[in-house]
């Protein structure tokens, strides 16, 4: 009798110990979870602060870049007065404009690329002028031909460019070239009005201009002949 009571008591005691252990574990687990959540929240907060700081930094950078771009190449030659009064007016005006529209000029800029892009863009312009010259002669021949061999059509082709500035540069290059006019860019497709087949085939199957524009703006997904040539020279020098 006493033995069974003793055994029961021991059992009870063990049960109570087990239960308390479980409860303690639960409490511990919960506290750990809460700590982790608190930590996560803190980290998020810190990240948000960093992100905010980064955004502020990029805003300040684009403000300064816009200010410099407006003040030195535009205001100074336009104004022509270099006394303190006019320069301070200019600084005020440039600061106002840069404050209003600092987010317009520099969108999606990849840091470090700007110099290369500007250099390649100025190298692209003479080629474009030569191309315009060639197209002028072509259109001149069509105009002077008494048979007038035109076959106007709107052609549609897919493009491999994707940033908006390169799309616009290519579209305006097409429009500047006589005989072709960009009508629209819709969902990555160009709608171009061409005056005859030769011009249209040049756009559809040639694509040199598109390659060059992609090279200027360093469209990342494609490898172009010019890039390979650039690298080849460096490679040779290295060897």
């Amino acid at each position, binding site marked *: 009798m006493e033995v069974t009571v003793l055994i029961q008591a021991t059992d009870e005691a063990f049960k109570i110990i087990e239960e308390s252990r479980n409860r303690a574990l639960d409490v511990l687990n919960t506290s750990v979870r809460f700590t982790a959540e608190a930590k996560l929240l803190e980290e998020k907060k810190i990240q948000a602060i960093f992100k905010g700081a980064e955004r502020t930094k990029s805003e300040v950078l684009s403000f300064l870049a816009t200010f410099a771009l407006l003040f030195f190449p*535009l205001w100074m030659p336009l104004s022509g007065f270099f006394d303190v009064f006019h320069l301070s007016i*200019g600084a005020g*005006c440039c600061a106002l404009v840069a404050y*209003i*529209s600092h987010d317009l*000029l520099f*969108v999606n800029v990849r840091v470090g690329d700007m110099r290369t892009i500007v250099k390649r863009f100025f190298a692209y312009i003479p080629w474009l002028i030569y191309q315009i010259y060639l197209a002028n002669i072509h259109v001149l021949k069509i105009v002077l031909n008494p048979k007038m061999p035109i076959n106007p059509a709107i052609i549609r082709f897919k493009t491999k460019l994707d940033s*908006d500035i390169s799309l*616009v540069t290519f579209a305006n290059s097409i429009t500047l070239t006589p005989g072709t006019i960009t009508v*629209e860019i819709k969902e990555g497709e160009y709608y171009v009005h061409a005056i005859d087949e030769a011009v249209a085939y040049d756009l559809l199957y040639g694509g040199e201009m598109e390659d060059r524009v992609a090279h200027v703006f360093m469209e990342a997904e494609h490898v172009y002949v010019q890039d390979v040539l650039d690298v080849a020279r460096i490679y040779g020098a290295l060897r």
Partner: protein
Amino acid sequence: MIITYEDIIIRTLTRVLAPFLQLYALYVIAHGHYSPGGGFQGGVILAASFILMVISFGLDMTRRRLSEKVDIIFLCLGLIIYSGTGALCLALGGNFLDYRELTKLLPVTIAKARALGILFVETGVGFGVMAVMTSLVYDISTGGLPPERR
């Protein structure tokens, strides 16, 4: 109503062109007493940059940049600058907009004072014209309705 239309060429070119347009407008305002141009012309160019944004980006995006409230503030500011300069000359003992009297306040010669007075007045005119033009376009494109009834 002005309906927004997604045209990547127009949008990108507006984005690139607008700051230069605005700075040119301010240049025309600031150099009105030396070269052709002045408050009215500069104000219209400044307004044209905002109208260009309304046409290419839509009304909401432009209003985020220059809200109607700020527009009205600019309008009043322009009027205050203009009439304030005139009234200041009147208070100093001359005629309305008689810039010669500004020499009593500023340590400059009479010719310089006239140039400065014209600069003040032109700034006022420029702000006023810009605000009126922009608010006209806002009103036309919203049908003159307040924001909650559009």
